[in-house]
């Protein structure tokens, strides 16, 4: 038991910090870990809110446009009225593109976090660097 205590406390300073150091900060909920969490959450939330706002604007706006601008109902493509094409077909690729975009952006945020965490001296003074 005494041995185990010595290993955790004394070797930590001696070995080069690995990419687990951020995990350690987060797990132990140090002040640093808290800074990371806030940064991560706000970056992800900003992304999610943007995607949702654009999507909501389109979906809420669509019935409104159909209701307020009757001309949009009379447009036809290959004999099919525009509202049918939009609601029956076009919505789905749009949803897929949105989802793809979100996943890429959100994984980029996570990758940046991991890259920061892999650096020898984690965050403090502005992290990133050239």
């Amino acid at each position: 038991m005494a041995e185990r205590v010595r290993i955790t406390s004394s070797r930590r300073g001696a070995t080069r910090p690995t990419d687990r150091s951020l995990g350690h900060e987060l797990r132990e909920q140090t002040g640093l870990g808290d800074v990371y969490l806030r940064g991560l959450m706000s970056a992800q939330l900003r992304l999610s809110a943007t995607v949702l706002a654009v999507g909501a604007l389109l979906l809420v706006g669509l019935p409104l446009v159909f209701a307020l601008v009757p001309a949009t109902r009379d447009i036809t493509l290959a004999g099919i009225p525009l509202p049918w094409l939009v609601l029956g077909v076009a919505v789905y690729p749009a949803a897929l593109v949105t989802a793809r975009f979100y996943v890429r952006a959100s994984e980029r945020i996570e990758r940046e976090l991991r890259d920061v965490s892999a650096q020898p001296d984690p965050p403090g003074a502005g992290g990133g660097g050239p």
Partner: protein
Amino acid sequence: MISELPVAMITLVCLLTLGVGAYGLRLSRHTSDFYVAGRAVSPRRNASAISGEYLSAASFLGVAGLVYDKGLDMLWFPVGYTVGYVVLLVLVAAPLRRSGAYTLPDFAEARLESQLIRRLSSLLVVAIGWLYLLPQLQGAGLALQRVSGAPAWVGGLVVTVVVVVNVAAGGMRSITLVQAMQYWLKLTAISVPAFVLVAVWFHAGRPSPQPPNPTWAEPGGGFGASGHALYSTWSTLLALALGTMGLPHVLVRFYTNPDGRDARRTTVSVIALLGLFYVFTPLYAVLGRAFLPHLAPGDQPDTIVLNLPLAASPGTLGQVLAAVLAGGAFAAFLSTASGLVVSVAGVIDQDLLRRRLARVTGNDASSINGFRIATGLAVVVPYAASRLVEPLGIATTVGLAFAVAAATFAPLLVLGVWWRGLTTVGAAAGLVVGGVSATLAVGLTILAGPFDGWAGVLLAQPAAWCTPLAVAATVIVSLATPRHIPAGTVRTLIRLHTPESVLPS
């Protein structure tokens, strides 16, 4: 005369479901296997399984029935079913997986560290699950009656028996395999006849669709019957977009992803698979208007998908297509009902039966038996209800289940994942306010509705007022009770948001 082929097809689908289930049974050994397939399901198969489970009777029969009956506006239903996954992806997919919980009540308890919240969530899972099972069983009765003339109670009973045998015997592992297969079965069953029917339509000289009323093809025409088209459109959209994340059978499946990143990728595939399916459903409504402008008296609009082939092409071709569609419809009943029953049974087992059974025996064998008993309970109650309640239309009833989920679990999940200030008291207040208001509105609509005027619209489309009400209750009460922020909030949020590569579990 038309009964043999569709009945043979339905029998085949049931046997196939049981067969694949039995194959999976050999892999299912421990309790954790029963619930979430040992967490070793690849994203692609998982996406097929999620879609297979999600595309219920409402999608296979209900959407076409609604569009046939009420027109363009009803296309918002499949749009909402799909957009729900975009919202789920953007707000909760990865964090939910990283929470590492099995079920919705597990997540609620882990995040809020409260047995009360757990019990409230369990109650809601059962309520939403039963509400969603009701139209599946009614739809099964309707479909079997339509194709074979069997009494309406038979179809629901067939689904009940197949699901109980499959779920109780194999649990989730076999179900994952079954569900993945069901998606491709359903896609084939909806798309191939659609292509053939379009060809028949061209061959018949492209008869034009006959709208039942002048506004059928117009935006605002379908919801306009209530006189409040825009409100109804938006409320439906909100219910479907937010409700998806709160459906018990959807969440369980996210726990079977290996990690948060895969949970997101799975969701993207789900959106693609759903879109692919929903492109075909409106065709049945439009062709139905062309070939069968008037239903036989007593036929529900929900049967249009099954009625169309014989109306378009009386003869062998029509019979074969009708059989394929009947098989696909039963695949839809079976897959959604299985998923719902797994979730509801899991909750009944864990939160109602487990402790009582453990008191008697207390080993692993008893917990699997408990799950089997719970499976019976989970499906017999909605079956009984399906015999007692007058059908309201498949997609409409399913929409009500979404509304309850949107007013209860959506605020809990979103605020739980993104807000540090959420307190146990606030969460409980939100669940109670959202749950009571939404179930009252839904209950009144099902049992005594539909009502006239604004009151009727608000009761039939409760999401647009119940959800904000629940969010407001949660936030206001949370702000008033800052001492009840769970002690482990920061630790939990770290786990929910940190990628596994940084924070290995």
